[in-house]
């Protein structure tokens, strides 16, 4: 079967985990990994899996591979590098899936709004934050039943799975996630809280989603909608599990989740990182499916 060729920009933990996920894909073949350090472990792993690599950044890849070969690129570098990477790639007609916090393109949470981005053929979509990927589907599951005046999420991640980028700019997480709870989740107002927990052995990512609905909550319809949404997310993150709830108290609807990763490269407790790479893979695959169908 024909697959679409993709490049992974970045050679860190996220990029490496994403590579292993894409190697199993029916729709995408990872062809290239782009780094900036020829000695990086990620590039060595990519070569051992048969990918071409360059330490010359996006320019290095474009010079070597030329236009028209790579059709989708996943950027797992940094917010600082993303704008330039994206500009160069889109110029060559490459569609870009942004795993950095840059958020040049619209937010994408696959079970909530990927269809809309496919319809509009967006050239750059942003994967929000790990906490956003884990919680916004639930906010949307509630808001599609009944208006949500306020949604608040608490994401607790193992200290070991919070990298220096997150730690250096933790406000970026709270702001971006809160904004996407409103824009994608459909809440009138959003708030996000992130907690790092250093327990050993590391705890699996936990997420709590509180929604305040307008009027009396329709408990049956909301519960059914949340159950269906969890199944939808489980299609690409099998370890996405309801721990407790939904609890209804007055206008509050609270859902308690656990997110366990697949352990492709990152450890299983890093559900926060896994859900980013899994959601990016899901986004790329549905884009590829659409592009292959239209080229036929």
């Amino acid at each position, binding site marked *: 079967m024909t697959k679409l060729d993709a490049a992974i920009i970045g050679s860190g933990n996220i990029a490496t985990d994403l590579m292993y996920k894409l190697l199993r894909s029916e729709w995408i073949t990872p062809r290239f990994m782009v780094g900036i350090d020829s000695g990086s472990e990620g590039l060595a792993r990519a070569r051992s899996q048969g990918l071409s690599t360059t330490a010359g950044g996006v320019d290095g890849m474009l010079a070597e591979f030329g236009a028209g070969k790579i059709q989708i690129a996943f950027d797992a570098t940094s917010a600082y590098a993303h704008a330039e990477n994206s500009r160069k790639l889109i110029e060559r007609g490459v569609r870009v899936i942004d795993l950095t916090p840059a958020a040049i393109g619209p937010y994408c949470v696959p079970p909530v709004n990927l269809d809309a981005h496919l319809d509009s053929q967006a050239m750059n979509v942003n994967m929000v934050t790990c906490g956003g990927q884990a919680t916004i589907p639930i906010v949307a599951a509630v808001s599609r039943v009944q208006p949500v005046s306020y949604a*608040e999420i608490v994401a607790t991640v193992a200290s070991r799975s919070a990298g220096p980028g997150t730690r250096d700019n933790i406000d970026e997480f709270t702001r971006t996630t809160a904004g996407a709870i409103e824009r994608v989740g459909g809440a009138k107002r959003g708030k996000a809280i992130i*907690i*790092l927990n250093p327990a050993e052995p590391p705890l699996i990512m936990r997420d709590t989603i509180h929604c305040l609905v307008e009027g009396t909550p329709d408990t049956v319809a909301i519960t059914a909608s949340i159950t269906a949404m969890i199944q939808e997310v489980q299609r690409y993150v099998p370890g996405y599990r309801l721990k407790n709830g939904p609890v209804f108290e007055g206008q509050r609807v609270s859902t308690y989740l656990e997110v366990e990763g697949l352990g492709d490269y990152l450890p299983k407790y890093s559900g926060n990182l896994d859900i980013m790479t899994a959601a990016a893979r899901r986004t790329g695959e549905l884009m590829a499916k659409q592009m292959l169908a239209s080229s036929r």
Partner: protein
Amino acid sequence: MTTHHRFELHEMSLRDGMHPKRHQIPLDRMVAIAVALDEAGVPLIEVTHGDGLGGASINYGFPAHTDEQYLRAVCSRMQRARISALLLPGIGTVDDLRMAVDCGVKCVRVATHCTEADVSRQHIGLARKLGIDTVGFLMMAHRAPPEFLLQQALLMESYGATTVYITDSAGYMLPADVTARVGLLRERLSADTGIGFHGHHNLALGVANSLAALEAGANRIDGSCAGLGAGAGNTPLEVLVAVLTRMGVDHGIDLYKLMDVAEDLVVPMMDTPVRIDRDALILGYAGVYSSFLLFAQRAAAKYDLSSRDILVELGRRNTVGGQEDMIEDVALDMCKSRGAGS
């Protein structure tokens, strides 16, 4: 005691005291207490949501007034005292910090779990740049050994903190634990960097631990009038001041005026007595975050469970400050296992 170095006392009833008040202190009470503390000579008074700037939430409780309303009302009335605000990165942001400084806050305390100091770089850096008294606040400090805490304190110092706190959020530490932690920081941080201690009275050691901290070189100590604070409260400030007076240590506060603030203004405001009941005792005994107390009691009442069992389970799961969402979750798990067992 050999304490002859300069130190300041920092009053907590209008911030940590927001926990037992469920963040509902009326604006006029907040102002009246702050004014009375100022008149008593208290140099530093903290005013914020119990969980810091931006703490207004379902998870921690919505306050009667916004941080901005409280801060503007209080700051404008201070003659000598400086007002501080607490900020937990991950809950509040630099936007909240700028707002607080705009309201007239002269000191910001940036709090992280004791092993996660590196999330505070942005906020400590900005506070220092804005030219205010910048404090790093290492919470649940009983969970890390002194050498580890020192590394975290050095990080905060490198970001620009001019004071670093050992914060006994669970009221778990014994005096020797305080001595070891404060002593090592005093020895290894820059001589210009201040060291603070924030106690909780869950094992009735608030005063003793504060004295241990002073003796080990701390120059800022937190306490609260009538102890109003999370768990069994903070170190009762009027008691600490009385003890310091008896010891002949200069503290600059009018003891009788402070006693009157405690008795005439703070105690009448309490919804329930702040005391070492069995739940508060278990916080100190098992090393659990003091602010969990009321949440555990509410969950226990709702699900017909023992609040002590809930708190012990939260300790067993190594929860850290801010994980209030785990309390209902734990209660639901306990209901399930009760159902399975019967």
